[in-house]
């Protein structure tokens, strides 16, 4: 099986869809001649030419809006938002226009577009270039939202997103672009949007996570004295409620590991849903392992401290299992701060 870096897997997935469907076009800042600031569209200009692969001005509202118009009229645009924060200048086109046009056209118009955005901390890009921001797009009927966690599922998710008749936002953890892994390509590798993956199975606890935290959680389980069902959601809109319920029915314990703020991070949706539909199966407090409620700090040490680490996941789950009560986050434990 070929090994690829995640950015190569994404470019490969886009290329496969472009070969299969002439209506797929790629737009973004430096995605063409330079092959993408993170090389996620490397080679596309050469193979598919300047009509279908385009460098844009620095105009996120403009080119995301153009993607909406192109999608409404028959193309399948794949737009790159270099850092997810830049959706702060273009969110209207994604959430208020694209997500609602099928509805607001009485079903006469569809908007098959993909917005790809790199997310997350770990590379020292600082407070305005290191967030994940899933919740900007979460409570948005009409939109789909996926998060990649490996070269393999990045390949499958982007292909499924491009084929989907709805607007889909795909978030790509920047820190994983350089990760190499086996990537099986081809049509069988599409990842159905809304389907989670059981990354590892175990008995003591159900850990639900996504994106860059999947790796962290697997590092944690590797060194832990307990075993866990590790569920990589892969999609947030829709998300795989059944998979999580099914696991929690067995383990009775739900832990969320999120690269997001403690207040309002994406995991609260999963926790809330399980606190309702899974209530009678729960034997322990639902535990969220997140970042603290601060802007992402710069600096190797600070950033490493800011992000949930494998060791931290182990110690929090250890405490949960040992005491049966909610472990408080490190920043509330005076000593560790």
């Amino acid at each position: 099986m070929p090994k690829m870096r995640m950015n190569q897997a994404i470019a490969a997935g886009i290329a496969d869809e472009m070969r299969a469907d002439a209506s797929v076009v790629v737009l973004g800042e430096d995605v063409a001649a330079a092959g993408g600031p993170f090389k996620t569209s490397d080679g596309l200009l050469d193979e598919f030419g300047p009509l279908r692969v385009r460098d844009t001005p620095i105009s996120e509202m403009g080119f995301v809006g153009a993607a909406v118009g192109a999608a409404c009229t028959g193309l399948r645009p794949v737009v790159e938002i270099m850092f997810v924060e830049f959706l702060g200048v273009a969110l209207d086109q994604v959430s208020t226009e694209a997500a609602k046009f099928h509805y607001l056209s009485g079903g006469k118009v569809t908007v098959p577009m993909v917005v790809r955005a790199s997310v997350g901390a770990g590379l020292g890009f600082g407070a305005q270039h290191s967030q994940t921001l899933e919740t900007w797009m979460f409570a948005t009927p009409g939109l789909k939202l996926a998060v990649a966690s490996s070269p393999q599922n990045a390949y499958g998710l982007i292909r499924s997103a491009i084929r989907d008749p709805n607007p889909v936002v795909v978030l790509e953890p920047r820190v994983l672009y350089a990760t190499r892994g086996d990537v099986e390509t081809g049509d069988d590798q599409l990842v159905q949007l809304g389907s989670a993956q059981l990354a590892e199975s175990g008995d003591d606890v159900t850990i639900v996570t996504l994106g860059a935290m999947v790796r962290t959680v697997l590092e944690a389980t590797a060194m832990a004295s307990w075993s866990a069902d590790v569920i990589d959601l892969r999609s947030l809109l829709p998300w795989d409620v059944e998979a999580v319920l099914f696991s929690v029915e067995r383990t009775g314990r739900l832990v969320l590991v999120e690269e997001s703020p403690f207040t309002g991070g994406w995991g609260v949706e999963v926790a809330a849903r399980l606190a309702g539909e899974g209530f009678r199966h729960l034997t322990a407090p639902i535990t969220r392992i997140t970042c603290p409620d601060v802007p992402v700090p710069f600096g190797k040490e600070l950033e490493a401290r800011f992000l949930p680490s494998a060791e931290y996941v182990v110690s929090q789950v250890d405490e949960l299992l040992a005491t049966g009560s909610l472990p408080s986050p490190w920043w509330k434990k005076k000593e560790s701060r």
Partner: protein
Amino acid sequence: MSSVPLERRRALQTDRVERFRRMVEIRSFEDRVKDLFAEGIVHGTTHTCQGQEAVAVGIAAAARPTDQVTCTYRGHGVALALGVTGESVLAEIMGRVGGSVGGVGGSMHLCEPEVGLLPTFAIIGAGIPVAAGAALTAQVNGTDDAAIAVFGDGASNIGAFHEGINLAAIWKLPVVFVCENNQYGEYSRIDVTTPIEDLADRAVSYGIPGVIVNGQDPDAVEQAMNTALARARAGDGPSLLEAKTYRYAGHSRADTAPYRVPGEFERWYERDPINTFRARLIDEGVLTAESAEQLEKAVGGALEELVAQVKESPFPEPAAMFRNVYA
């Protein structure tokens, strides 16, 4: 294939009496809509376009049904001009099943791809880059269709205007940007919000033609559109047209426009697009005073029938709100 909207559209292409009829249809439609809201039998808000009929009809006369149009919440006139039926528009405004988008959208949300009407926009400026995107489709597919963005003077101050036109200009996309300068953005006269007199001047920022058009005259609008569309279809890129016109009604249902400059309405009304065009057609011998009057009566009668019919038509079931959320 054909259909009522397409026929209504084709009727405008050559026949200037039909253009006159359409302008009259739009005027009476909008007047009637205002009344319906005043009667309180319609929910929500509405934005009517009395006084701007020549812009809508001139655009529809020049454009092909396969050209893609984005317009605003003040879109009843553009929709009717493009060919959308009065029933479809009124039923949407009144939230009935027969509405343009099934009655779940309301006055600000119309759509009819058959005649090139993309979903109308309730967010200022949002339709401008979207029109550029529709033009991108034509460019990528190698057709010679074009796109048209219709928006207001106030919209020329929002970022999407700048980004959308710049993008279209650098890619030489086949699109025409039509700014309906009706002198007001909501309750603010343009000079309160905009430091220049002629919005067409903003074309300089993009290296494209900027043309001032008499928005009171459907012939003038048609001619300017023909030039801009020919340029677009030839691959020479976008143009910015500023159609100078005037909004007779208030901004929306409730607004009585107390902020209007005294005498301004009267000055514009002297150049009323319907009166002017009627006079011209009579001069040309295409119409007589009598035939014009009959035509206007007929339009009024048809409208009353339409209103009665839509009033009787059904509302959507609750289940309708769950349809078309995802494709």
